[in-house]
């Protein structure tokens, strides 16, 4: 099947920067928007693991939430398994999508037992109590938690790694087609992170889930992903298969990102200058231009489009010879 399982076209999400309630409307104040996600195109093929890599404020979590249908985009279109996602069919679409959240302490209801937590996605499916129980046990076993021990435990009795496993069990119990994982290992210790990553890989191999793996950790992205998309200030700057992007990053930001990551392979960090820009009034033209060592005149004036060849796409004037007219 060539049709990608998820496709986002010109996705936009703008948040109100300040409260805009009755008083503000009365006084006719203009609302300020944070351009969290701006004209993003994304495709995820069935069964693949796409890593969305970016720093905080880049918009990666927002994209993840939009693709998981938890957030309505301000503009653009979202397609899931070929059908357009609209408010009328979103409830149906949601049955095939699940999400694993970042902070294991917060993503489980502290008042529920493990069994209740993992069972919740099954309630809307109309299964019998026995069937539900069986599925919960299967899910717990699949994530390496013995059901007889963990069924009635509470989240507060579990370690971070165990909680995250419960979160993964909850995500797989309803047999979704697509799982969005938002920084699933960032809050975990290094050794536990390895356990959880192994688990995710195993499940992917066994059940063929499609993952959108959101992370700021380059090493994790390189390890787990088939393809990588790098996001900066609400825009995708580079995407392609993981080997190409990681070993020969083309976009200056991807290059800077890779040079900023501390590894045990070599010493010496070469971070970029400056800070992430404000998304309320982002820089003109290419959003990375104020920090780019290769900045040219055109970069300040016009935004480069994401253009690709041989499976790698870059949004940078260093590579784009002609301007592409946007069909706004």
């Amino acid at each position: 099947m060539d049709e990608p399982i998820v496709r986002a076209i010109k996705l936009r999400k703008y948040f109100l920067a300040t409260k805009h309630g009755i008083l503000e409307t009365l006084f006719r104040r203009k609302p300020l928007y944070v351009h969290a996600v701006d004209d993003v195109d994304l495709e995820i093929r069935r069964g693949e693991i796409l890593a969305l890599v970016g720093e905080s404020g880049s918009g990666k979590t927002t994209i993840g939430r939009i693709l998981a249908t938890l957030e309505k985009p301000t503009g653009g279109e979202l397609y899931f398994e070929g059908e357009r996602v609209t408010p009328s069919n979103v409830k149906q679409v949601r049955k095939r999508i699940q999400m694993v959240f970042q902070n294991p302490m917060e993503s489980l209801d502290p008042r529920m037992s493990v069994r209740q937590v993992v069972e919740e996605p099954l309630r809307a499916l109309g299964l019998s109590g026995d069937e539900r129980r069986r599925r919960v046990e299967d899910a717990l076993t699949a994530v390496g938690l013995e059901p007889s021990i963990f069924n009635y435990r509470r989240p507060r009795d579990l370690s971070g790694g165990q909680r995250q496993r419960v979160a993964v069990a909850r995500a797989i119990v309803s047999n979704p087609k697509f799982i969005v994982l938002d920084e699933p290992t960032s809050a975990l210790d290094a050794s536990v992170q390895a356990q959880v990553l192994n688990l995710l890989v195993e499940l992917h191999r066994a059940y063929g889930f499609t993952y959108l793996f959101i992370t700021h950790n380059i090493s994790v992205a390189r390890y787990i992903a088939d393809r990588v998309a790098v996001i900066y200030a609400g825009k995708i700057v580079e995407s392609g298969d993981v080997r190409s992007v990681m070993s020969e990053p083309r976009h200056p930001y991807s290059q800077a990102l890779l040079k900023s990551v501390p590894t045990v392979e070599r010493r010496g960090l070469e971070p970029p200058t400056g800070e992430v820009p404000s998304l309320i009034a982002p820089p003109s033209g290419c959003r990375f231009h104020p920090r780019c060592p290769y900045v040219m005149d055109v970069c300040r004036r016009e935004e480069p489009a994401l253009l690709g060849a041989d499976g790698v796409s870059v949004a940078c004037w260093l590579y784009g010879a002609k301007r592409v007219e946007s069909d706004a």
Partner: protein
Amino acid sequence: MGFKEIVKRFLGYRGTIATATVVKEGEEERRLSGYRFYLDYLIKDRVAAVALAIITLFTAWSIVEGILQYVGFATRHRALGWALLPSNPIALNFAESLKPPSLSHFPVYIFGTNFSGESILSRLLYAAPKDALAAYLVVFSGIIIGMLVGTFAGYFGGWADEVLMRVTDAFLALPGLVLAIALSVLLGSGYNSVLISLTLIWWPTYARFFRAQALSLKSRGFVEASKLSGQNSIMIILRHIFPNSVDPVIAYAALDFGNVILTYSTLAFLGIGIQPPYPEWGSMSSNGLPYFPQNWWWSIIPGLVIMTVVVCFTLIGDRMQDLIGGRLTY
């Protein structure tokens, strides 16, 4: 051992509660959970244990005596109301007027008598259920109303939030004492009008509490996971938001019982609420003022009793806030 050490020991542990020990995979570990954990901590803490004992006594007595009074009133056998008391709290007995505290006829005169010869002790015991009822009723209705208003406003946001919060602000702006006085003029200065006015002004604080909780909970992972699982908003509120909002409110409510009793007593002190000849702690205190300091027991002892009960509630609430605060910082 320095003075600081002694005080620290007496007041019990005030240090950090260690982060929860990890349950080993494949091993069973016995751990205290939920309210037994609280109880265990409170009992280890000696001061809180004493406070807890006093409050339990107060509540138990109020329930028993309250039932007796109600049944007595309903069946027109008012004497039931003082069947358990050392003496009749509203029987005039001028022969024993203004007796100082003494051990004769133990325990009738242990706190002395007032001008009408009624035993202060009996009157205190007789009035206790009213205070208890006011405290528990006002706080619980505050919680319920506040929970409905605040959670709805916080979870749904938008216009509902704005409207509900402005209404809450309006009620918050009502000056409690003035409202109570006004209502007592309208409805007659009875006990019921005091309860109504207290209820009306008490819920806004809880509404804000629950709204804050709903706001912070609605962005938590498990609420979003619930949405993805197809739950509708009402079910999410019932299954996730309400149960998780309650923890911090309990600690605050424990403190709040004391506040209600204080306000209620103040109103009684000012003459609003229960009318003579029925006793009320606050009004006893104010009635005894003209006889202060010669017949000090009339005014001071009810005041001390109010203070003790309020302090005990406050202590428990304070400890619970520590506990809950500690638990919330996993």
